[in-house]
């Protein structure tokens, strides 16, 4: 049972990182960005 918990924590962390990658990508269109 606890194994599932730690797999979920791992997947959650990487999900956050994948979202961050997409988020950073969107920042590229910021004003003043050459």
């Amino acid at each position: 049972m606890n194994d599932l918990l730690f797999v979920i924590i791992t997947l959650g962390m990487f999900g956050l990182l994948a979202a961050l990658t997409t988020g950073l990508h969107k920042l590229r269109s910021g004003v003043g960005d050459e």
Partner: protein
Amino acid sequence: MAPTAIFQIVLYFLILLALTKPVGLYLHKVFMGDSFFLSKILGGFERMIYRMLGVKPEEDQNWKQYAFSVLAFSLVSMLLTYGLLRLQGVLPLNSQGFGPKQMPEHLAFNAAASFMTNTNWQSYSPELTLSTFSNMVSLAIHNWASAAVGLAVAVALIRGLARREMNGIGNFWADVVRGTLYIFLPICIAGALVYVASGVPQNFSPNQSITTVEGVKQNIALGPVASQEIIKQLGTNGGGFFNANSAHPFENPTPFADLFTKILIFLIPAGLTYMFGKAVGNVRQGWAIFAAMSTLFLVGAFVGTWAETAGNPQFAKLGVEVANMEGKETRFGIAGSTLFASITTGASCGAVNSMHDSFTPIGGLVPMFNILSGEVIFGGVGAGLYGMLIFAILSVFIAGLMVGRTPEYLGKKIGRFEVQMAMVAVLAMAASILGFAALASVLQIPKEGVMAALNTFPGDAYGGAVTAYGPMTGNLNNSGAHGFGEILYTFASATGNNGSAFAGITVNTPLYNTLIGIAMLVGRFFVILPVLAIAGHMAKKKVTPNSAGTFPTDSSTFAMLLVGVVVIVGALTFFPALALGPVVEHLQLSNMGGK
């Protein structure tokens, strides 16, 4: 400070200086597609790996594709390691009879995160926890893979800075394969033999039970130590075969082995600075980065050695030997230990040949500051260079603000996006270190309930499970300033992906293992992702010719500015925390019992 101490530090630095250019040239050949002697021999094998993986090495990835490849590779390898560690009881090469009891869920999570992120923090005692299979396969594979990932990211950033008006920054899979095949593999084969010749064991023997001259039974662990040792140092991993790490005579048997170890740790990070300069078409750019790293390294090494030689002022009052030898191997002495401490924390290695917890407050401040500065003093394989290049971008930004010109680096304008990304990396590190250290300093654990379960020490060879309740600081061996220093060092080491321990803190609890595991993931990827974003963005930019107003970044002035920015950012971010730890501890020690 003894002349032999100065000689040791200077000799080490001169050897490193001599190796930087040849290693850098070799790295350049490997990653920039040149033909060289090893690629002629192993080229067929390399192409076979690509065919098996379905990879087209000549196909460039943009930064986002590169980043998703890094994340996918890391996620899969972390989950695989978690599973293999939990299943060590039913897997082969387990003459020790270890199973899931020695490797509970939270510890497997911590160990998998630790090795995948190149941290190699060890909450466990390897000889009481890990089967030979877990050592050689489940964890050792990350010693190679995590180092190769760090190297790949640095190479991607170098390409991003060197390329002009291009979309791609290389192919992640090809970079990992080339790094492993042409850099780690040949050096590890040769280096493992050097370790064996020095007396490091390399076998599959079960633990040997012997009787000492005092008549006490002692269990001596044996196994494939040399093969673990070489990649542990070369890949700046740091996770040892033995709990005592490089203080153990089987890991570090002779003064030559100790010097060899120290050179291995900085070998690739130093070479990368030259490779960077060559790749951007001006080797002076690389030497400027090398000079900044060297300045920070040498100042730390000399201050640490001076502090440990000066020792505890209270001992001096009693007229006894003042040099602080507590927690140090007499085989290595003061300089052998402080130099090692400066190297292992300057890099994100984390191997230790002495107990950093036993250093004097100022002696302990040096390794702590090295980690807090982002481990850019040569740094981890790849991680050191990309960390320092983030500071280089911040430096030209600050210099640009001072003179009122648009900041440029390598002829490319630094825009808002690059500075934002550099700040994401710097702030994520600080938030993780300070946030987790603050939490561990104030959290109260109740006697019962979920939080109590989270702070239960697992049963091991020495006894059953015990729940520690009350303040979370109850896990510390020391109270006051030194205890706070232990907490700060723990989360700095985890977030910085260093893995060395100040010790003096019991961290093999579910709560600590989980928090430290998360800190390691934050420290690794909240830097890698912004670095790749910068790489992708810089690759697209045009190069404008230098003008009279261009701030030269291949000069000693820039190297010193870079040193200043690293120190000031580190000091501004962490000085309040350091003041509560080693600084106040030093003042207490100096003033104890009045003058």
